[in-house]
């Protein structure tokens, strides 16, 4: 098990990496999108995006001024005994000062900003447990521009798969340029209202270009990606061939009388970073 201080230092590093660098699958897909455009307006948008990614990395600066709210996905080893919650909170407060992060987390009633990016349920942690000898921690800094475009639809079962497609198409068209396209579209299908929305968010963590293990979902993702890129909304809503970088769908079994569908959009700055804490004390950056 790592020491508490080593863990906190590693988490500050994880947060810095998450807001400064984009994962290679996202950068590669943005580069492909740039190569596909021939109109000067979308080409310039994608060129600025790619330039910005390189500059942020070079200068070790957050790539977007909206460093989001801190969301963590933790898959615990059975034997992890460190106080994860308090350490994550300390790490976020330190990172807010040092990276720095923009202080975004406010009290939802008074709108008071404590300046620390912490508060009730913030940082937010989603837990899972596995049998492996390590704990995996992924950070997703989620900005408001794209999060504000989220949709939950409690459809009726008779609306079927067509209803899912309609909901996704409508969400992306209504959002237009506001969520900073090209976006990744997370789709959560089934479960219940809360399960569908968390699946939609969780779907955003899957690297672009990896196949959905469920063949039916994989087909739906492919079909929707093609259709959404036909809308012509394009990078930043200024027109172009790439409106979405990909569609990622996840599903859960649901009540026979329910048909929930949730959509969560992720801006082009699809930030995520992961570390593994091994039971033997090693810390590895993924």
């Amino acid at each position, binding site marked *: 098990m790592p020491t508490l201080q080593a863990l906190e230092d590693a988490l500050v590093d994880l947060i810095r990496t998450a807001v400064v660098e984009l994962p290679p699958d996202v950068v590669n897909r943005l580069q492909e999108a740039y190569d596909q455009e021939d109109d*000067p*307006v979308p080409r*310039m*948008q994608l*060129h*600025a*995006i790619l*330039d*910005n990614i390189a*500059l*942020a990395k070079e*200068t070790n*600066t*957050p*790539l*977007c*001024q*909206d*460093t989001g709210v801190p969301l963590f996905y933790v898959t615990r080893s059975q034997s992890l005994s460190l106080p994860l919650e308090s350490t994550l909170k300390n790490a976020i407060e330190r990172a807010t000062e040092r990276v*720095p992060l*923009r*202080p975004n987390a406010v009290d939802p009633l008074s709108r008071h*900003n404590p300046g620390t990016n912490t508060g009730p349920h913030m940082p937010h942690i989603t837990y899972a447990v596995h049998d492996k000898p390590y704990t995996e921690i992924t950070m997703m800094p989620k*900005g408001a*521009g794209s999060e504000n475009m989220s949709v939950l639809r409690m459809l009726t079962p008779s609306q079927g798969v*067509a209803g899912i*497609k*309609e909901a996704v*198409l409508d969400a992306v*068209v209504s959002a*237009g*340029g*506001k969520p*900073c396209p090209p976006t990744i579209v997370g789709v959560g299908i089934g479960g219940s209202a809360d399960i569908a929305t968390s699946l939609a968010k969780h779907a955003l963590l899957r690297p672009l270009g990896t196949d959905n293990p469920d063949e039916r979902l994989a087909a739906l993702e492919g*079909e*929707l990606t*093609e*259709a959404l890129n*036909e*809308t*012509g*909304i*394009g*990078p*930043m*809503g*200024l*027109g172009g061939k790439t409106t979405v970088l990909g569609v990622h769908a996840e599903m859960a079994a649901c009540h026979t009388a329910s048909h929930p569908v949730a959509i969560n959009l992720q*801006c*082009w*700055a699809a930030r995520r970073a992961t570390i593994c804490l091994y039971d033997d004390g090693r810390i590895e950056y993924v």
Partner: protein
Amino acid sequence: MRELSIPIDKKVLYGLRAGDIVTLTGTIYTARDEAHLRVLEELEAGNDLPFDTKGAAIFHCGPIMRKYDDTWHLLAAGPTTSARMNSIEPDFIRATGASAIIGKGGMSQPTIDAMRDSGCIYLAMTGGAAVLAAKGVHAVRGVHWLDLGMPEAVWVLDAVHFGPLTVAIDTHGGSLYAAVEEETRRRLPSIRRSLGI
């Protein structure tokens, strides 16, 4: 890419068309929701503003700033969603005589109308490209109304080849967003057919 200096020459301003790509050099003021409201309140009360807005370039932005050696430094400064200012921007443009609004995502018809009436353009900056934006700011000349908080204060930025920026709404009522929306609407029936919906 056209290199414009602020204040933008009237003839140049009226010659710009939606779709043109430009950069800006000169003084830029940041202003979000709170600063817009205070500008209107001050003008309504008959007070002078602490900065000159006539022909100014206004940037919808809540930057990350850091103070060291007693000087403010800008770290990251991408545009924020302009649609939040939709309800106050028409009055703001008419009252201040600003000649350029920099933001992302576009603005609604009343703002487009005010821009046409007063001679103002909307410049779309790439959302999220905050480090690139900061590169076009060579110095932070000052700050007004810091009591509004770091993101909401009016920061006075010394911009050099700030951009690239796309003229998305011009002084003649032309809007790139409106054109894209219309094209999307035209394509929707065939997209629906291909999805079997």
